[in-house]
Structure formats: structure tokens, C-alpha cells
């Protein structure tokens, strides 16, 4: 067995960190590493919570609060924080860690920042493998926090056992609710910044919307959170997540593997359709035969057109 795999299985955190890099960079040894780990790994994979939502919804702060709740419950936690990458340079400014600073030296907490790399669906297959590594390493909890930009929430939902969709009152309420698939993929709704006016009304609106759709076995609870101000609200969220886990244990996953494949395929088709519709928005300089680059650029346009996180171009807009 290779050295890295051995150290990983021995609980060497640096080996975990290195292994993630090997997978992310698609190094030749990646496949072998995964296979070795999969065959030797003791025990079950750790339960995974996915946190998604629009930029500015306060996901990172909520993640930090969840880490705190988990630690208070004596659980170790691994976090994967995914941020968008620049479609121009491929680089990324990863700042989610800033909100988790109090846990840096806590040996029971591991945080890894990852760039979404303009991948279709916001989470790439390699990100999924990285999540698997975190789950297999031995942490009690894994939290994946991802940029929520339209279709990308589906990718995250596929990875996580429990998907928490983070919304904020007032931030374009109807737009958030109408966004394709948000209501479908949520296992728990967290209305963050719940101290803002309109939070209660918004929570009621979300619940009302749930009663309109098809009857589901699991009705996602709507939890109001004020991440930092009030620990009790975070425990509400933690309770809701535990509740969903109990439901899963009793009834199995809410989606079969086949349905999951279908859902991913739909996501891809959706992306392609949007791409075709908006192809004309790319300038001739941006059209390229490289499909990944083309999609990355399109995603860049999509983000800009949906008024989401502005991405600073490398050449500044000096107003002349």
C-alpha cells in the first residue's frame, strides 16, 4: 500500500490534506489512492451536511455556528468550503475560513477551502471525491459549504445526506423561492439573519410554499437562525438536522441512486439549455473550442447577469 494511504488510515491529518490535493489536481496516483482507501477503510462514512444559498446569506457564519454546536456535543468536524473561481484566470480568493477563525487550533476541527473552478453544477466530481475523503478519514461530522448559484445547488444536494438551504429575509424573497429546485432539494430551511424585519413573514411564506408542492415523506423544517447572536437558534438548526438523520435512518435516503443519476443528468441538460440560450452573450474573443473554458466563461456571465458575487476582472475598469 502506498505511503500516503497508510498515513491517511493512521489518522495523519497532513496525509488527509495531501490526499485532497492529489484528488483535486487529478494526479495519476489519485485513482489508486482512492481504491486503496476504499478497500481498507474501517467503519461507516461520516454523516454529511450540505449548506447552500445565495452569496451574502451568511452560510459561512452559520457553518461556524454549526461547528460550535458539534464541538459542544463532543463531535469532531471536517469542513469543505467551496468558493467561486475567477473565470478569467482560474484563480480564486477563498475567504470562508475567516468566519471560522476561532477553531483554527482546535484539533477536532479541520477546514479545507476549495475553488469551484467554474465547474458545471458548482461542485465537480473531484470535489465529491474530496468530500468522500473527509467522510472516510474519521471525523464525526462533515459539513460542505458551497456557493449557491442557480443550478449548482443540485450538485451539493447529491453529495450531502442533509441539505440545508440558507435564505435571508428581504434579499429578493420571491427570487430566492422561485429559483429552480431550491424548494426541492432542501431537507432543512434556515432563515438566517432572522433578526431582520420580515423574517417571520418570510418563514411562513416558505412553509406555505411547501404545502403547495407534491406531498413528500419528509417536510423540511423551517428554522430561524441568528447565527452569532444566539446559540439557542443554532441548536434549533442542529436539532432539525438530527431529526432529518433519524428520518433517514428509519426510511432510507429520500432519493434512490437511479433517481440521483437522473437528477444530475437533468442538471446537466438544464445547464446546456441555458448555455445555448445565452451563447450570444459571449464576445468573439471569449468563444473558444475548449469546452471547460467556454462553460467557465458562461458561468461568469451567468453570475454577473444574476447580480451575484461580482468577479473582479484582471484588468481594472479605470474609468476613462
Amino acid at each position: 500500500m502506498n505511503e500516503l494511504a497508510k498515513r491517511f488510515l493512521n489518522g495523519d491529518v497532513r496525509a488527509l490534506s495531501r490526499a485532497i490535493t492529489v484528488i483535486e489536481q487529478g494526479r495519476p496516483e489519485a485513482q489508486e489512492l482512492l481504491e486503496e482507501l476504499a478497500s481498507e477503510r474501517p467503519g461507516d462514512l461520516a454523516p454529511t451536511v450540505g449548506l447552500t444559498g445565495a452569496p451574502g446569506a451568511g452560510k459561512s457564519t452559520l457553518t461556524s455556528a454549526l461547528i460550535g454546536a458539534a464541538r459542544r456535543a463532543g463531535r469532531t468536524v471536517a469542513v469543505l468550503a467551496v468558493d467561486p473561481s475567477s473565470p478569467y484566470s482560474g484563480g480564486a480568493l477563498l475567504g470562508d475560513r475567516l468566519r471560522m477563525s476561532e477553531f483554527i487550533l482546535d484539533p477536532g476541527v479541520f477546514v479545507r477551502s476549495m475553488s469551484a473552478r467554474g465547474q458545471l453544477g458548482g461542485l465537480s466530481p473531484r470535489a465529491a471525491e474530496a468530500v468522500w475523503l473527509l467522510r472516510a478519514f474519521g471525523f464525526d461530522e462533515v459539513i460542505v459549504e458551497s456557493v449557491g448559484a442557480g443550478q449548482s445547488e443540485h450538485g451539493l444536494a447529491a453529495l450531502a445526506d442533509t441539505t440545508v438551504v440558507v435564505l435571508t429575509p428581504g434579499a429578493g424573497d420571491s427570487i430566492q423561492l422561485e429559483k429552480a429546485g431550491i424548494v426541492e432539494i432542501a431537507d432543512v430551511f434556515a432563515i438566517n439573519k432572522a433578526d431582520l424585519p420580515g423574517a417571520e413573514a418570510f418563514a411562513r411564506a416558505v412553509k406555505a410554499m411547501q404545502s403547495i408542492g407534491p406531498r413528500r415523506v419528509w417536510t423540511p423544517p423551517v428554522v430561524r437562525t441568528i447565527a452569532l447572536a444566539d446559540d439557542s437558534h443554532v441548536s434549533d438548526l442542529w436539532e432539525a438536522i438530527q431529526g432529518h438523520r433519524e428520518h433517514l435512518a428509519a426510511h432510507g435516503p429520500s432519493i434512490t441512486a437511479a433517481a440521483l443519476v437522473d437528477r444530475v443528468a437533468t442538471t446537466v441538460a438544464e445547464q446546456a439549455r441555458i448555455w445555448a440560450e445565452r451563447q450570444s452573450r459571449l464576445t468573439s474573443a471569449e468563444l473558444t473550442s475548449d469546452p471547460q473554458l467556454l462553460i467557465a466563461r458562461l458561468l461568469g456571465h451567468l453570475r454577473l447577469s444574476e447580480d451575484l458575487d461580482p468577479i473582479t476582472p484582471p484588468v481594472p475598469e479605470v474609468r476613462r
Partner: protein
Amino acid sequence: MTSTDHHALEGHYDRWLDEHAAELAGAGELSTSSGIPIKPLYTPLDLEQIGWSYERELGLPGEAPYTRGFSAAGYRSKLWKMEMYAGFGSAEDANRRYRYLIEQGSTGGVSMALDLPTQIGMDSDDPMARIEVGQMGVALSSFADVERVFDGIPLDRVGHIFTTANCIGPIAAAWFLVLAEKQGVDTSTFDVQIQNDPIKEYIARGTQFLPIEASVRLATDMLQHMNQVAPNWLPISVSGSHMKQAGSTCVQEAAFTICNGIAYVETCLAKGMRIDDFGENIELHFCTEMDFFEEVAKYRAVRAVWTQLVRERFGGTTEAAQHFRLHAATSGRPLTAQQPLNNISRITLQILAQILGGCEQTRTASFDEALGIPTEEAARTSIRANQIIAYESGVPATVDPLAGSYYVETLTHEFRRLIWEEIARVDEMGGAVEATRQGYFQQKLADGAYRDQVAVDSGEKVIVGVNRFQLDDETPVPVFTLNEDGINRQLDRLGRLRKERDNEAAEASLRRLAEVCATDENVMPAVLDCVRNYATTGEISQVWRSVFGEYRSEMSKL
């Protein structure tokens, strides 16, 4: 302008544009450092276009909208105040300097820099403080250190003391109040100015250690208390200079500062204060950089906007309420280490912009600023620059001499418009505190800093002597030595203090402080008690941390 004249001019102007089209286009498009486009020529047509009227935009000096200044005779009757900033390292150095000044008969006043641990609410023996104790300023871990600085110095001879205590504002205020108490000196016989502007720390300077609302509560508690017991002191200097130096544009500097000022004032009003009582003790502090006419426009616009806020938003009824302190310091940022004498020219232009902007309080940097602590010669040269403008140039002989310039008035008007726009935007976000919490200001600053860097790297923005007109010689850079002895002495003293003071009294006063902090009561009386009992800076700050929580970044933007 009559409509016939207007029509005629329009015709001439159009003809002129056509005739000289190539020449005008050749220079390309230019804009101010804030991105406001600059036309090749400004005429009365530009004023017409913005609906400019003398009454509405300017008025007369000493009257609303105060664009032209606060006093009828301007500099004719009273020149601007010229402060020089001089920081100290050790308490001994500060003590020596004060004694020297008093001997020389000076009451000009001095500034007292505090070391970083003190500013961040840490004692000198805090593990995080070690190598930074006493480095960028004096270490003041307790009132005993303050007594040491002022040993043998009568406060009523010291004039004006300024200190950049921000998040520890109430503690600094307590030091000087207790010092005056102990010396039996009336607070009206000398001046203390405390920066006390925590919001900008979160945005640009980084000494915050509490949640932002707690910092604002503490700052305004101090303001309220000072207004009652030492109404001639200056309890707040809402600062834009740090934000501009961190990357904001000139417009943003003005607008963000005003937004922060609104947050403080409205918090004070909510405590039952009236702006008529403290309006003139508010200082808005800015720095002057190199875009000459922008800076002039900025100072004129800030006067107009703030006084309007006092009248229309804060409920001010008196002239005094509107007559805030407009403070301008020449910025050290444009000063280069390369060919330092060039900085004399830069500083002169900066001073001139401040004067033409009508500032009453100013501070001037020295030409060797980029090389370390200014020499006496450099400091003197800066004072002389002020004096040459004051006595040789004729500029102060009339009030607001640039008024009526088509360009300056268009620019001033545009500044006012943009500032009001920003105020509305920040209001919609929930105010300056909420905007800061979200990282809105910070992102603007970082974007601006990046734009600036790219422009300098590409040569698009010229810095004489740095990316153009360079010399080949090696650039001198400041040398810095760590003062190990000073650190050890301070640690010694602090250790002894902790043993020798009345620990029961200190602890009791800290407990009382914790109780008060949990209510809405003004914290100052409790802080004063802590200081009297030699509770340390760190201990007082720790009470705050435990009651209010530790600062945590909540920014959703980077």
C-alpha cells in the same frame, strides 16, 4: 446668464469643439482619482446644466450651506491651525518632550502615540503582545504608566494632547480625567482630543476587539460623558483618512466618513443627547492626497453636506451645532522614499489644497516621512511651507478664492450629489454599522487599492521618481530597531503593579463595570473607578470582551 448669451455661448462652444476636435481627442479621456470624468474645458454652460445657483450652492461664508467656510473673514482674521504629529516610543521620551516644550514656553500641544497592544486592549504582558510592546508608541497598561508620562508636568501648561485611542476610547478618556483630578487641574485649562472612532477600525485600521455595536455604545457613552464633564475636550474624530489610505476614492472617503458620523450622532441622539450641545465638538478628519481640485471640492462639499444633515436630520438649531471641526492632514501615502526632496513639492500642493478648501485645522507631514521618524529639519520645512503660503502668497487674503471656477463648482456639486447618493445607499443597508458588518466599505477599499496597484504597475498612474523619472541610486529605506530593554522594563513595572496595588479594590471596580455594561447605563463612571484603582487596560478590555463577546468577522465579501 441671459438666454441670449447662453445661446450664443453654446453656439461658440459647439463650433470650438468641432474646430479643435483632433487636438481635444488626442489627449484621451481623463478622470479624477475618484473616476469622475474631467472635460478639457468648463464654461458657464456646465453650471447651467446642473442648475447651479449661487444662493443654493454657496451662500455666504459663515452661513448655510457653509460651502464657502464657517467664518466671514476666513483666514484674514485667523489662519488655519498647523499641527505637527510627533509620536513617541517610551513614556520617558514623551515626558522629556513635554518638559522641553513647557520650558520653551510652547503650548502648541503634542500627540501621544499608543503602542498596538494598548490600542487593542491588551496589557504589555499579554502573550500576543510581546514583541510589539512600546514599539509604535507608548505602552499604557495602567494609570501608573500615564502618571509616569506626565510626571512633573502640570497639565494646564501642556496645551493640546491628542491620542489615537479608538476601541479603548473610554479608558483613554478616564486616564486624562483622573489625571486632572489628581493634579487638581480644571479640565477647561487644557485640551484633550481622543480619536474614539471604532467604526473605521473595523473598516480600515484593524484594532477592533469587540462586536461593532458594543464599540459604538462605548464610544458614544464616552462622548456623552465628556460632553457633560469636559465640554471643551474633543471626544471624537470621525476619520476618513485611514479609509482613503486603505484604498477608498476621494468621494468614498468623504461619503463613508459622513455615514460613520451619522451612525455615531444618531446613537447619541437615541441616548437623549441634543446635537446643539455637542455638534461643535465633532471632528471629521480627512487626508489630502494629490488630486488637487478634487480635494478642494471635497472639503467644500463635506461642509455643505454635514451642516445640512445637522439642520435637517439631527435637529440642530444653532450655528454652533453646525460648526464642526473640519480637520485635514496631508497624506503620507503619496510621499516617496525615492528622491525625498520631491516630497516638499507634494506636501506644498497638499497644503494648498487644504487651504483653498477652507480647512481650519490641519496637520502636515514631513518630507522624509517614508524614511522613518521625521527629522527636525524636515518637520520645520513643513511648517515653513505653511508659513510661506500664509505670509508670502496672498492666498489667505480672501475667502474661498476658487469659488466661481466653472470646474471647481461643477466638481463640488458632483461631490455633494455623490455623497448624498452614498448616504442613501448605506441607509438602505441599515446604516454604517450594518454596512461595515457586511464588509461593504471594506470591499470598496480593497477594490480601489487593487485598481490603484494595477494602474501603478502598468505605468498608467505616474508616480514621479518611482515609475517615471527615476534615478539609478539605491533607495534609502527606514531602519527599525527593537527596543528589548524598554520591553523588559515595562514588563517589570507591570508585574510590580499587579502585586502592589489594592487588588480587592481593583477587582471590585471591574465587577461593577461588568454589571453596568450589561445595562444601558453610561459606562464611564465605572471605567473611571477602574482606572483610579489601577485596573489595567487589559483587565478593563477583558470585562468588555466577556460581557459583549469577542470580535468575529461576519463579512460576506472579501
